[in-house]
């Protein structure tokens, strides 16, 4: 069971990272989501894998560690807020650059101009 779970987390991480390294905003967002699934599962599993020990007092004889669950809950919510923001940001980038490339792509005027005059004398 543990091995399986570990493989799941590994896969989620790997796919998340792969998508993160793509060049368009959409796959990046999807990758981040996958990554956060993996991370949430990982954080959750720090309380170990147990069955039927839900941390509701009175519902079982033993209880699993409730703290990681609370942490994951917080992480999920925060992750949601962040995903929402990055999605919107990618929309904004699309609006600004007419392209959903992560680097904007529309050739901007060169940022730095070496001042030839100062360099070479007038």
């Amino acid at each position, binding site marked *: 069971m543990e091995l399986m779970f570990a493989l799941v987390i590994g896969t989620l991480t790997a796919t998340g990272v792969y998508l*993160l390294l793509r060049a368009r*905003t959409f796959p*990046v967002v999807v990758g*981040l989501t996958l*990554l*956060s699934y993996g*991370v*949430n599962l*990982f*954080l959750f*599993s*720090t309380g170990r894998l147990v069955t039927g020990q839900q941390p509701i007092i009175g519902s079982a004889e033993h209880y699993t560690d409730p*703290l*990681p669950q609370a*942490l994951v809950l*917080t*992480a999920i919510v*925060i*992750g949601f*807020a*962040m*995903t929402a*923001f*990055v999605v919107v*940001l*990618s929309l*904004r*980038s699309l609006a*600004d*650059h007419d392209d959903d490339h*992560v*680097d*904007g792509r529309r050739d*901007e005027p060169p*940022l*730095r*101009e*070496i*001042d030839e*005059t*100062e360099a070479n004398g007038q």
Partner: protein
Amino acid sequence: MNDWLLAPILIPLLGAIVQAFMGYAPISLRRTLALATTVLILVSAIVLLILANDGSYRIYAFGNWQPPFGIVLVLDRLAALMLVVTAVLGLLSHIYAVGGADEGNRQFHGLFLFQLMGLNIAFLTGDLFNLFVAFEVLLIASYGLLMHGGGTARTVPGLHYVVLNLVGSAIFLISVGMIYSVTGTLNMADLALAVRGLSGADLEIVRAGGLMLLVVFGLKAAILPLCFWLPKAYAKATAPVAALFAVMTKVGTYAILRVYLLVFGDNAGPLANLGMDWLFPLALITLAMGVIGALGAGSLKNLVAWQVIISVGTLLAPVALGSEAGLSAALFYLLSTTFTVGGLFLVSDLVSSQRGSAADRIITAPKMRNRTFLSVLFLVGAVAAAGIPPLSGFFGKILILQSVQSGAEMGWLWSVLLIGSFLTVIAYSRAGSIVFWRTVDGHLERPARLNGRVSASAGALIALTVTLVVLAGPITRYTDATAAQLHNTAAYTAILQIPMVAEGN
């Protein structure tokens, strides 16, 4: 238990809530209330500084739960210092923003206050996971602030900043998970006790977690190779936001100080000084990279943004070496560089506003209207930033140089820092002489006169560097004491024994 500890968090929170409600109130009212909030934050920070100055730890246990079970705020000298730095920078940037940069969308003040809240939580919290939450609060607010203002230039750098930090957050969570899975606790004091006796697989897991955490903090602090998101993002941000962001990289530094000195400090057994052997060379390379970037910068804001990277490297090098003198020096330098960089961002913006389409690019342009005032501010800022006497940057640097007195580290640190300073001087003198002196008679529409608020706040930030020099004695006494306190982890872990309010519920 001292309710003052709550103030730097609750004040901005309430202020931000008020701002959320006041979406359609007149701008003057919103400005007044927002500024009042920032002033109150500064007041509370100063109170905390006075409290902390007696050298004891003060804790605040949320919900009256004994640490390590509940979340605690811990006030010590370091936290108080960071709070004051943030509050001062925040207030001055805020005043600058009220000078006109806050127009354009109604959420600015709310986001600004939330940003301050996140920073303050990060500085006060004594809980690793809560530190994560604080990071998220300050990050999300910074994302919002970064995108404040019109124009398309900041979208892509903003996107990069956000995506990288999201990955950073994921890594943070993984590290917290790894550490928790072995130690079973999140309170930093408790963690410090828990990591001492580790061995075998446990040790490796925590070590991996700790090192990954260093990457996260390194990302926030913007050390090489994780710093490339910064220059463009900062250079493109609205000026008061960029100025406030001067403290953002310091949060990463703060976190490194806090976590690595406490949890992986000298007493941590096999994990003692974890990752510091990585940090030192990286800090120096960061410094070098920053200098190269500054030298090649094409605009003033870009130059200042690279100055941020320079200061990160300068700051982390002595931190990595970890001596008390080094820490004290780093803290002094932190004060200096934060204000200087913040001030320079504001000045660059003022310059930009007076040069028409040339903006802040380092090229010839028509003469500015308030050239003398701006050039003096820039000069002072540049002198402080480059670390030449008589301003605070110089003192920061010699304190750092002096803290390393032997070995190969000395050779590396000294040569990189000094050569770096030399090149920075060249970069600033080149930029300044072109921007301020090499003017043409253009047919530029006469730019508006600078208004009092922006001039005063930019001037005040720059002037702080002089203040730091004048007060260098007391300040170094404080930073010395802070460094000593940081090294005395036993006193920190003793907070676990502090009694709660009588069991009431």
